[in-house]
């Protein structure tokens, strides 16, 4: 293995768990997460191989994995604006039905997060999916803590408003 591959391997060992968790929280599908994991580190490897330096690998990997996961999330959602809740209707067991309903809600949050503007999405994910404090988010995104807080508030309000829309139509 060449030196750049050795370096990438170190990075994989150090941040692999983080990348996996980031991807999983956005898109909890084992195959997709493996693809995102691979895509993220191969991109990292390609950059390093070109002789470029990534000064903050953690932030870079986090952002790249998040973007890749949301990109797939959007591809899944495309223009079908309605969650398939037929499983719910067909399930007689109320406890199981409640669980399905809960999962649909969680998926809805993930899908709607994918549609947020870039900055709001980053703050929303880092704070809510990753549990990162605002001070650290601000440092990572090179903004003030107040800006990060304001972005998160806007993101939360938007997602809440979008969740209220149960009937939408698309026009091309």
């Amino acid at each position, binding site marked *: 293995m060449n030196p750049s*591959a050795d370096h990438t*391997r170190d990075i*994989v060992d150090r941040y*692999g*768990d983080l990348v996996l*968790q980031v991807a*999983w*929280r956005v898109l*909890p599908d*084992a195959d997709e997460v*493996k*693809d995102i*994991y*691979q*895509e993220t580190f*191969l*991109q990292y*490897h*390609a950059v390093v191989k070109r002789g470029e330096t990534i000064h903050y690998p953690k932030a870079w990997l986090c952002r790249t994995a998040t973007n*890749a996961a949301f*990109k797939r999330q*959007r591809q899944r959602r*495309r*223009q*079908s604006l*309605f*969650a*398939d*809740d*037929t499983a719910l209707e067909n399930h007689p067991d109320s406890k199981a039905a409640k669980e399905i309903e*809960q999962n649909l809600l*969680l998926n809805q*949050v*993930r899908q709607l997060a994918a*549609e947020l*503007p870039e900055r709001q999405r980053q703050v929303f994910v880092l*704070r*809510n*999916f*990753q*549990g990162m404090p*605002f001070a650290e988010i601000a440092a990572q995104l090179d903004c003030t803590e*107040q800006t990060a*807080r*304001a972005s*998160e*508030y*806007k993101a*939360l*309000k*938007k997602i*809440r*408003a979008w*969740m209220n829309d149960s*009937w*939408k*139509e*698309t*026009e*091309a």
Partner: protein
Amino acid sequence: MIDRTQFENNLSDYIRGELSADEHREIDAYLNAHPEALESLQELREILGLTAQIHADKPPANLLQEARSELLDQLAEPAPTRSRILSLIPRLRLPRLPQTAYISGLAASIAIVAVTLLWPGSSSEVLADMIQKWKQVTSLRIEGWIIDAEGTRTPYRQWLQAPHTFRAEIGAGDRQRTVLVVPGQRQIRDRDGILYREPLPDDHLLSLGQAASYLSAYYESERSREHAHEFTEEDLGETVRYTLWHSRGLGHGPSDFKHQIDVDPNTQLPLATRVFQRVDGQWLQMSELHYSDYDRPIPPETFQIDPEEETRPIDAETELALWFERAISPQSAHVPAVHVPVAEVDLEWLDSLTVKSRGVRAGYHRGATAGVARQEFVDYPLGEILRRMTGHIVEDSPLAEKKLSLIATFKYALPWQRRIQPLLAHLSLEYQLDEREASRTRFIFTQDGRHLPPSRHRFSFSRVKGNLDMGYEFNFERTPLPSVISNIFNNCPDTAFDAELDTLEYAWDGPPERNPFKREVDLEFSTSSGDWEESYQILRENFGIKLSQTAETITHPILKLRPAQP
């Protein structure tokens, strides 16, 4: 006491219990003083309850090991040879296949390297360059064939000249038809040699820039590629071929259309385009057009209109007869052909299994290509379906509430009465056209008289990227001001604009030569909310646009449904 901004900025941490005691008390005090803020508190509490569950969700225990192992295998492999274009790509995703399958796949594709792009960064650059090059083109010639309205392969030639002129010839010999567009008018010679002429409105500029908009929306737009069912890039040596297999308008899965463009990697200009359509399960090639003579002068007589020659006006009847010719534009270079319904209207009924498999519960999607409209409805009320097909409001009734799933395809020029006839006949229904009073809002735009700078661009070009309610990116180059305004206005969901009843008007009482609504302008901006107020502010600042509204009572047609009389 803290102000509203401080309250909002700290509210989520208040709910999470992560504020200091002092900060917590400040939020409590604010809530006591502003009981209306309790609603925000409750809303955020619900969302944060969900995100906390997402945060607590852990991937399966063995997933890390599996992913790591596969990744390290990839890192250990020698890098595959990459083509010139592909070398611009930072790193393509390698398919997660067994190693042997991957290597044999590479061996089999020495001549043609085809990769499904899931990371579109590099193609963006190449395709963006193509758009920029195209926008510099002053003229070109296109030649090849298209599938005509009758379903037969027909020779097709087109000459385009900047800024707003083109000539198209469809067919050959005595039966050849021509379409000639010069600023302000269109002339069509039909199969029988009869000449028709019609004026074109000022904002109906058919130009090379319009073709650039099409190219950009299909190939350059990252969003388009993200939403494509499949986007492939093939390095064929002399050319690079991009194929876009579109996704369904509604739901998951592929659509019935593929568009293909060959680009010269040296000049970065298109060399050929093809359109494919799946009809009755079979892929048909609908066109093959080759591009040449870029920037070579075209003889002026190619675009000459003889004002003395006898012409006929275009009325409702000839509009339908010439529907195909009138749909030809510079965009036709890329969308020249489409399968035309055999009957006047094709209806495809969607069963519940098909609908379910596409993951759609209900919705509506429409598209119009080369003069053929396609409207897809899933579990949609009949009254709304008819409104979408006719533009007329349908009276509320139990019949109008009946929900249907179907795809309707028809010639766009078909009168609305004939569009809905097969559907109503199938349902054993008929309609009665009546009138009723309704309130119409006139949205009237004025301008403050300021001088608008001339456009910096040579062609008209416009692009809108974004989603309902979620913010937009607008880019208008050399676009008539009314088009800019209406495009923005129609893309804002909070304007309460009813396309069937309301009007957009542009009022100017100054000298005609200074009429700003006759000007072409440039404007590029993005919004975060997608709300009209945000965009309106931009229009006010840049062009001095003001909007006023008046409401008036009007009488408008309404369709009433009833069972067909025996």
